[in-house]
């Protein structure tokens, strides 16, 4: 999971729907696991869109379409709204996605992706629309996500965009570090705060 980030170049899986909520990413009935079974969550990513009621794959859903593959998910605006369940980020990571590109992410889900070394890349509406079109025209087209330089490039059109990421989080992703190490190392500052405020 904690694969260090650098530059990722991959084909994309398009999901041109807006307001994809975390109940769709992983339905509540799959939240009963008490361990981080990434494969289990990945196997049930988008469960109710991906499988029909009888358990057979829904041929109309993009994850079941062999035309599309890659470790970059491209989704419509307001991706990951609703429930705070980190299981949604585990499912995305467990399936094998390392980057999600959208024009807008819900706050909690965005943090959950970052905490699981999945990179949420926010692009402009124009860039996103063009990217969906490029993928439609050539499902084998590639996108380059360059974290050190904070750029995302549509290799079909050559259009490139800068994306924002908090500098601390970028450092964590590039070095495989997480917040808990930092917070435990800073407990003296927490104790100092408590003494001043309690």
């Amino acid at each position: 999971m904690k694969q260090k980030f650098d530059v990722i170049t991959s084909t994309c899986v398009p999901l041109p729907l807006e307001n994809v909520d975390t109940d769709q990413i992983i339905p509540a009935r799959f939240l009963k696991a008490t361990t981080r079974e990434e494969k289990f969550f990945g196997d049930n990513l988008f469960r109710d869109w991906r499988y029909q009621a009888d358990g057979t794959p829904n041929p109309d859903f993009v994850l079941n379409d062999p035309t599309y593959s890659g470790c970059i998910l491209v989704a419509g605006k307001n991706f990951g709204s609703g429930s705070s369940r980190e299981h949604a980020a585990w499912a995305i990571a467990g399936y094998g996605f390392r980057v999600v590109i959208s024009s807008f992410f819900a706050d909690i889900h965005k943090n959950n992706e970052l905490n699981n070394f999945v990179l949420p890349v926010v692009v402009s509406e124009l860039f996103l629309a063009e990217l969906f079109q490029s993928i439609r025209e050539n499902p084998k087209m590639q996108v380059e996500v360059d974290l050190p330089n904070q750029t995302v490039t549509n290799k079909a059109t050559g259009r490139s965009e800068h994306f924002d990421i908090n500098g601390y989080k970028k450092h964590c992703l590039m070095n495989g570090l997480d917040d808990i190490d930092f917070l435990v190392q800073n407990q003296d500052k927490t104790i100092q705060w408590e003494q001043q405020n309690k």
Partner: protein
Amino acid sequence: MNTLFDKIWDQHVVQQVPDGTTQLYIDRLYCHEVTSPQAFDGMRARGLKCFRPSQIYCMPDHNTPTHDQDKPIEDPVSKKQVDTLAKNAADFGLTHYGMMSKDNGIIHVVGPEKGLSLPGMTIVCGDSHTSTHGAMGAVAFGIGTSEVEMVMASQCILQQKPKSMRITINGQLGKGVTAKDVALYLMAQLTTSGATGYFVEYAGDVITALSMEGRLTLCNLSIEMGARGGFIAPDETTFAYLKGREFAPKGEDWDKAVAYWKTLKSGSDAVFDKELSFDAADIEPRITYGTNPGMGIGITESIPAAGDAGFEKALNYMGFKPGQKLIGTKVDYVFLGACTNGRIEDFRAFASIVKGRQKAADVIAWLVPGSWAVDKQIREEGLDKVLEAAGFEIRQPGCSACLAMNDDKIPAGKLSVSTSNRNFEGRQGPGARTILASPLTAAASAVTGKITDPRELI
């Protein structure tokens, strides 16, 4: 600048980390069984103990059955998750309110009613509806499991400071219009992403006049506009609600606390990143028609005539047509409860409509108190008699059909009028169709068997 949000947030900053991140001190962490086990496992793997165990409260709520709670949970997977929380709490020395304990209930109902959530606090839980506790005048927000582990390990969290928004609603709510309708109205105005990136302060005549229960409902639904959290400056209503509660300060400490709480308000010169104003007169009882909470209409209105691909997908799922009116549509299930509307005032409202009437024969109604304390008060006030006389049964507390992690699942294709918070596809069970509404609208629909304007029955 100088907003109440700034005051509470800034006071809790332990340090500013370079590049825009804040190490924020957390006063209260709540844990339920669904989003905590992997955090406890992470703590074990790192060999850590909870840094401030006395500030962490645990209780199961999502998986709890709403009947026969004195017997073992039938679903072995649910049972394991509930048992795991009890074991984790014991191993890490945390307070745990187990099933059938008089203290148990939905975490967002129990926290305020025990006085565990107080003005000026920072409060987190691995649950997006943690925004509920903002009604107490606290900065409260939902977090993921990795962040739960951060707080267990350090009583702190690393966050970027959100922007601030004030939503002012002036005027007076009309007959049959509740806090739930106000929230559903705001979601339709702002959409489910309109407040993303913001902490929302609610203000104005309507907010001041709301009871504590109403405020909890409104703040609960802040996340459905995308907001990190929503809160209301504490006032006499807040203090009166808190006084005498189990964990509220007592005696001299109470006086000191109230004196401090009275300072918790936005300055007259406060500058918000965004300000919105609405008029109470524009709000009627509301219902949703689609598959996100922002897809809502006034109960007398029609579904919009057209929309984007998401609109078509939603109507296709719901089995509705563009331009259709929903009033009079046959209802299969009614659900009263959840962290949104499982409090005493919600049961009073529901009972006020069904009193002297009868539940429609073909409606299945689940009435689920938010906690055992709510259940006790229902019985003390005699509401149980009113509800039972009208053909309703009160179930045992838990999250229940809000997200159907227990057995309370709405069957595929059935239409549910629900006082919960989300109408996402499959939220109340695979294929279930959910209409979000207030307890009054749910009650009116339960007795007529059709989607009904509660004003006709008041």
